[in-house]
């Protein structure tokens, strides 16, 4: 209560201090955040991984896997089958798989799904998944584990997964007669990579995304035929909505098991791999429980298989602590980079959304596209026996689970295969960035208020003269948007200016409408790809990625030119200093809120947004007319910087940088062209991912980050009279 009722809290002293030091403090916060982040790679700032879930009992069983012969047999048969029958075709050897699975006496089912591609001309893709269920002898199919291999045909640009399928079948053959299974095991082969996986998961969980309108909730009280409100009936000719509910038709499953506890995905092209890469990043940056990741690393190690995670290799040890720090940082950095886009790096990523812990084991050899792997040639080759042992130990360990994974960490960054950084350790770096923005907002808040006359009761001393009456009114009015701030902008929308008096230089209406309008623009941009690709293919006969890319570029350019004039269109008089400061405070608060909320879900994305936009947020200030040449130059520089961090510019720049790292010896022009093409693809992928899988990156960027950027752009481009 002391904090609440102490009148000295609002005293002018700390306000003065704050006004003087907020610049350096914000800068320190920013630098501190980055330093903290870099430090996280160091041993002293992260922890050794450990098992929280005792029920897992990793590696306690005696391995019995003995089906390596049948694995080789399956492998050769499958290769032969593919070469003779399926070489040219983009279909899966369904009959072969069904035959083999039935032969092992699994319950075999096939699952058909259809995709109506939501963009462009509406192509239709069809696919089939095959799965076999091993019913647990000890329980009644209440829980299940999944072992899955994505099928890739020979002609695809990715490595095939023939060895993975063979290993899975051999393991199924080995596991079928065992009596110890307490959970069903579902052996699943999916087609079209993530698409098939998504379709199978949706079908398994009976997901139908039909959002029901109000009258559906009335049930039998609603008489059919009663008129209901329908937006589409107003615009019959324009395809307003993306029918992404219908885009992927997951079909139905004929056979089901219990709730899935965990899933292991295998991607092996040959048994002669050098090491296994454990992939964990999922949709929207979601991660599997750390216990599962530990389990996999631990059991790979126990089975004598070399394993790695994001450039952290189990067979490489740092020479000294500096070396370890460097390695730890790069592993961490690579993981963060991979998480930003929220695209899963394997089929396991789609399980996370359903609360299922899943990882992918990818077999790699020395010819890996990810770059040069140190000392990889000295590693011995793996074989089906070792892989089978590893898979057996993992599944038998998972078989021991008594309840869902709930211990250990869900939010972490790995600094190597055996070290991790928990949420409590990495959050401070993000919080420092958000605090920097909030300090800036607070200092603007007190500055604006003080210029109005009375910030706190000590200054009410001044309220004795006649002229100060006006000041007080001003202050009161500037206070009046305080509830407005709590209740967001909509409140302000309709506060009509007529009732304002001439002495009051604050029109909540205009800035509120402006603020809201920019967010609506962002929402509109989010919905454009469908319309753009529709008209692009209708009138210009362009593929959807081209029409979406150039459509979005032209919208962005248009917005850059229009938005600074937007506030003028909504009003008669000039914009005042107080109004613009208020907008600045609001947008700072919004940005820090957004960063925090996003980082709760996907730390990497939130951190990236914060790192990119905090400098802009901190340097944005209201420009007063006639502040001299130097200020004008600075303002110009700020504008240039603002353009540099436009979301679209950031995307293109990062793609150019990325293609530069891939193909280094190229002219800059060629790199630029390649980067632009990559950006086109990236935007298209993010649009498609948001429609098919529910990736949030595109929606977030267009409906939240873009409006925030536009507001900063407005603040930088509007000149106001001195207060």
């Amino acid at each position, binding site marked *: 209560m002391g904090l*609440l*009722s102490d*009148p*000295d809290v609002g005293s002018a002293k700390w306000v003065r201090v704050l006004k003087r030091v907020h610049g350096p403090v914000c800068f320190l916060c920013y630098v501190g955040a980055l330093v903290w982040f870099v430090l996280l790679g160091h041993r002293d700032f992260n922890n050794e991984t450990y098992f929280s879930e005792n029920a897992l009992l990793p590696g306690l069983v005696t391995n019995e896997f003995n089906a390596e012969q049948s694995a080789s047999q399956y492998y050769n048969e499958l290769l032969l089958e593919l070469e003779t029958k399926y070489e040219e075709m983009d279909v899966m050897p369904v009959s072969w798989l069904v035959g083999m699975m039935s032969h092992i006496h699994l319950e075999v089912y096939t699952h058909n799904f259809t995709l109506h591609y939501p963009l462009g001309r509406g192509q239709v893709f069809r696919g089939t998944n095959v799965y076999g269920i091993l019913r647990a002898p000890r329980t009644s199919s209440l829980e299940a584990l999944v072992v899955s291999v994505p099928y890739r045909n020979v002609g695809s640009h990715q490595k095939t997964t023939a060895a993975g399928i063979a290993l899975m079948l051999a393991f199924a053959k080995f596991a079928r007669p065992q009596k110890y299974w307490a959970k069903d095991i579902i052996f699943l082969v999916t087609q079209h990579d993530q698409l098939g996986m998504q379709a199978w998961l949706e079908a398994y969980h009976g997901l139908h995304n039909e*959002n*029901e*309108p*109000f*009258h*559906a*909730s*009335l*049930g039998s*009280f*609603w*008489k059919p035929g*009663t*008129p*209901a*409100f329908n937006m589409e009936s107003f615009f019959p000719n324009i395809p307003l909505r993306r029918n992404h509910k219908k885009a992927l038709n997951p079909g139905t499953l004929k056979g089901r098991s219990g709730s899935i506890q965990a899933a292991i995905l295998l991607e092996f092209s040959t048994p002669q791999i050098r090491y296994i890469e454990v992939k964990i990043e999922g949709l929207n940056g979601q*991660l599997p429980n750390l216990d599962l990741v530990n389990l996999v690393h631990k059991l790979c190690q126990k089975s004598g298989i070399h394993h790695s995670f994001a450039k952290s290799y189990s067979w490489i040890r740092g020479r000294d602590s500096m070396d370890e720090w460097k390695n730890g940082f790069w592993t961490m950095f690579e993981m963060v980079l991979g998480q930003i886009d929220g695209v899963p790096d394997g089929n396991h990523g789609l399980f*996370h*959304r359903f*609360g299922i812990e899943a990882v992918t084991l990818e077999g790699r050899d020395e010819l890996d596209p990810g770059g040069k792997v140190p000392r990889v040639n000295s590693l011995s080759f793996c074989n089906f026996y070792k892989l089978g042992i590893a898979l057996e130990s993992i599944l038998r360990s998972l078989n021991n689970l008594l309840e869902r994974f*709930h211990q250990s960490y*869900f939010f972490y960054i790995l600094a190597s295969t055996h070290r991790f950084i928990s949420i409590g350790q990495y959050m401070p770096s993000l919080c420092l960035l958000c605090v920097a923005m909030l300090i800036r907002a607070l200092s603007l*808040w007190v500055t604006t208020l003080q210029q109005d006359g*009375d910030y706190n*009761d*000590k200054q*009410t*001393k001044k*309220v004795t003269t*006649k002229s100060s*009456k006006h000041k*007080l009114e001003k*202050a*009161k009015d500037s*206070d*009046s948007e*305080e*509830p407005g*701030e*709590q*209740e*967001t902008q*909509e*409140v302000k929308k*309709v*506060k*009509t200016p*007529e*009732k304002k008096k001439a002495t009051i230089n604050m029109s909540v209406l205009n800035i509120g409408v402006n603020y809201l309008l920019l967010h609506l623009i962002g929402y509109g941009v989010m919905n454009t790809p469908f319309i753009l690709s529709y008209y692009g293919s209708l009138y210009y006969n362009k593929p959807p990625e081209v029409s979406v890319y150039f459509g979005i570029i032209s919208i962005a350019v248009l917005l850059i030119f229009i938005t600074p004039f937007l506030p003028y269109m909504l009003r008669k008089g000039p914009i005042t200093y107080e109004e613009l400061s208020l907008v600045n405070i609001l947008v700072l*608060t919004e940005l*820090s*809120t957004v960063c*925090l*909320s996003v980082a*709760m*879900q996907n730390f990497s994305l939130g951190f990236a947004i914060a790192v990119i936009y905090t400098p802009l947020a901190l340097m944005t200030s209201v420009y007063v007319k006639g502040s001299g040449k130097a200020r004008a130059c600075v303002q110009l520089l700020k504008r240039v910087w603002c353009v540099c961090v436009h979301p679209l510019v950031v995307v293109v720049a990062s793609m150019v940088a990325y293609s530069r790292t891939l193909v280094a010896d190229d002219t800059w022009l060629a790199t630029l062209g390649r980067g632009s093409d990559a950006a086109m693809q990236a935007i298209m992928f993010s649009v498609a991912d948001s429609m098919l899988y529910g990736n949030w990156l595109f929606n977030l960027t267009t409906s939240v980050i873009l409006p925030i950027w536009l507001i900063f752009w407005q603040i930088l481009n509007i000149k106001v009279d001195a207060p």
Partner: protein
Amino acid sequence: MGVILKYVVAGLLRYWLINLDYWQTIANRVEIATPLNSWKRLIEGVYLYDHNINPYEGDSFHESPIMLVFFYYIMKKVPFILPVLFTFLDLLTAHLLYKTSKAFIRILKESQEKQLAEVADESKPMLLDDAQLKESAEYVLSVYLFNPYSVLNCAGMTTTVIQNLLVATALWGASSGQRIVACVFIALATHQALYPVLLIVPIALILAEVNKGCTKCSYIRTLLVFVLSWGFLIYLSAYIMDGSYKYVYNTYGFILTVPDLKPNIGLFWYFFTEMFEHFRVLFVCAFQINALALYVIPLTLRFKKDPILLATVLIALSSIFRSYPCVGDVGFYLALLPMWKHLFTFMQQKFIVGCTFIITSALGPTVWHLWIYSGSANANFFFGVTLSFATAQIFLITDLLFAYIKREFTLKHGSSRQVDGKPAKLVLR
């Protein structure tokens, strides 16, 4: 013209949200719908009633029988007007609040004139003038119409819409001196959600102030009318349920004993899930005393002269501490705050409270998603956010009260805060 435009825009916004495809998502949010007020449960109750099953025998329906019958007839006869009805009722609430705040401001003005003699000369400019007062009524209207909390509450079609209407009508009745209206409607609101029973105190004070005359007689009369109408409503409900009083266990009993621990924005659920069962009675009593009785007497003694502030604060406190709060309650008392616009100058925690409101409103749904859908966060995350939301609200209320005291002091003694030549410290007591 401007006012009508506001109503139209706000009405269209609400109506559009109800007819959105995402309506179910809105209506099922834990922040919006609680076991007490959710549309889903209302439908369930009406359905059971329609099939001649007593809805109070199960554990799904907790509305009062009067509401049950009301919605039963609407759903039977004219189900398609429900979206319009809810929109209309919410707009009516806004209108009544607008009227109320106008009347309240008149009362404020009168009391200011009464105290004019005590005001120090240098504080004279701080007195309220007509334009300012008129403005704040407009703000009340805007805030209720466009506050996302109220908008979402109406879009979710919770019965809190009705409760807000009842409370607003009662306040309006009190402010215009109509004892019967005020008492009957506060009895209706009490019958529905119990916590509005607190408001009988400020309403009695306001009625006594508006209807000049014998104060004590006025108090007694108000109380009498209230008790009689409440009793009548209880009887009427029993009559509807064929003379059985069993519904009391599933309405008042449900509110008081908090058996359903579904998470909401309040403070009860987490505490009672964590607690050992044999302490339950003790803590239920403690929590309910905190929500129902603790603040009434001290606040009444301190703010006797300003029953309107008392009403605002009691509404706010009971919505923070009640067993099943929802954002509709928060939206309702936030709409009353602009009446105290002249106190905002004296408030110190505006920035903190504002930021916390924004941040918690965004973080709450995020951590809920992580907890329920992703399975990666847990209950503590969500509770942490709701706890800071509640703290922000408490800061807001305390700050408001303290600002009132500061203003009172400044009016009386001028702005130099000196007692016997030494700087003095104001304490909220």
